[in-house]
């Protein structure tokens, strides 16, 4: 089984690596690139903790091999903040509205919420619940997450 060279962009940085074909994208991100913000919860495509943006769309990085992401642009939670020491609107809103507790589902949740806001700048509560229905959380009961997205998208 030969290793495969790949090149992709992650949080704006170009990355070249050689990977075993069977290495999942989330394992590549976490173990090779040491970007441990993206988490592994189930490895079978249900919990959403591994959600990243692939060419701008939220996908489950446990359901992809790293080789499939060749020539793609990836955004992880580490790439959401506009600058060092700052927070994006949605990250700030999660802090303000207590939209997290243990933080394990949070990176995937933030990515999904950011993708939602990119497409739909003023989502209704039911649109928010629909959008995050593929991200499971065991701490929050989702209420404060919904509140956070509402807060992040309210008119200034």
């Amino acid at each position, binding site marked *: *089984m030969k290793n495969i060279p790949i090149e992709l962009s992650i949080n704006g940085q170009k990355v070249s690596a050689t990977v075993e*074909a*069977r290495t999942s994208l989330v394992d590549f991100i976490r173990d090779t690139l040491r970007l441990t913000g993206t988490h592994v919860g189930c490895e079978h495509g249900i919990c959403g903790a591994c*959600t990243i943006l692939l060419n701008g769309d*939220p996908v489950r990085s446990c*359901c992809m091999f790293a080789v499939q992401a060749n020539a793609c642009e990836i955004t992880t939670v580490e790439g959401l903040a506009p600058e060092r020491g700052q927070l994006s609107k949605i990250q700030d809103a999660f802090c303000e509205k207590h939209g997290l507790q243990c933080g394990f589902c949070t990176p995937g949740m933030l990515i999904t919420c950011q993708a939602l806001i990119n497409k739909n700048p003023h989502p209704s509560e039911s649109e928010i619940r629909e959008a995050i229905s593929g991200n499971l959380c065991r701490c929050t009961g989702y209420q404060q997450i919904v509140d956070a997205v509402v807060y992040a998208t309210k008119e200034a």
Partner: protein
Amino acid sequence: MKAAPFNYHLAQDLAHAKELLHEFGDDVKIIAGGQSLVPMMAMRLAKPANLIDIARLPELQNIQITEDKVTIGAGVKQSALEKHLASQKAPLLQAVIPWIGHQQTRNRGTVGGSLAHADPSAELPLIALILKASIHCESKQDGSRKISAEDFFQGPMWTSLQANECLTQIDWPLWSGAFIGYDFEETAIRQGDFAMASAASQIQVDHDGKVLKWNCGVGGMGGTPYQFDQLTNQFLGQKLSKEKINEFSSQAIALTDPTSDLHASSSYRKHLAKALLSRTIEKSLLMAQSNTQPNR
């Protein structure tokens, strides 16, 4: 849950894909979106020695809408289809897409992948059967062929695709004229899960409300989805009453053979499918009766 080792081959174009399928025919799987395959490989339920990646094949990405059909490339992502289809063109197909998994899975999963995977509860196979889609595939050895949806789905996770064949495009017939209605429903314990049972109906009536054209079916009720054209044909030229619909649904469900699993017993499934089928028929009929304008 790490996949067993395999050799990865990126197909450059369809000819290359067919060549690779031919070369590794003994132990090969195609990967497009991977939303079903990758979890299976992670659980080591599937251990192909060779994986052929067709996700970026240019030949499989097109969507073409003509007078009487929608032709969709097998590699078209479900989310791309959702964006592309205008609701008047292929309404039943459009209606089921939001029910397929979650947006994250639809951003990777393909139309062809869902059909080739052939889960008996999946939405697209059910619609393919009801609308009588044609499924095109090609191989190096045997050229191209067209398979009717009826002949395509053989059993659970089992189609008539050969190991060396690649699904290329699917034709979904379009109905034209006025008084067309449709409905789809599924019930799962949790939003986005595979349905315990699902039902769909598409119907066209005349200005008197008599059935001109009609098909319907259920999913999750056996090894493959079911469509009931042999039964619906018996109602051409008739008006459908609530009693007739109820009787129809009983007859239809009697043809199915659902299993029991963790979430639903076979008898509960039968109850559920019958209720959903009746509801979708009623709703499609109501919509048809009010759609006085032709859809073209």
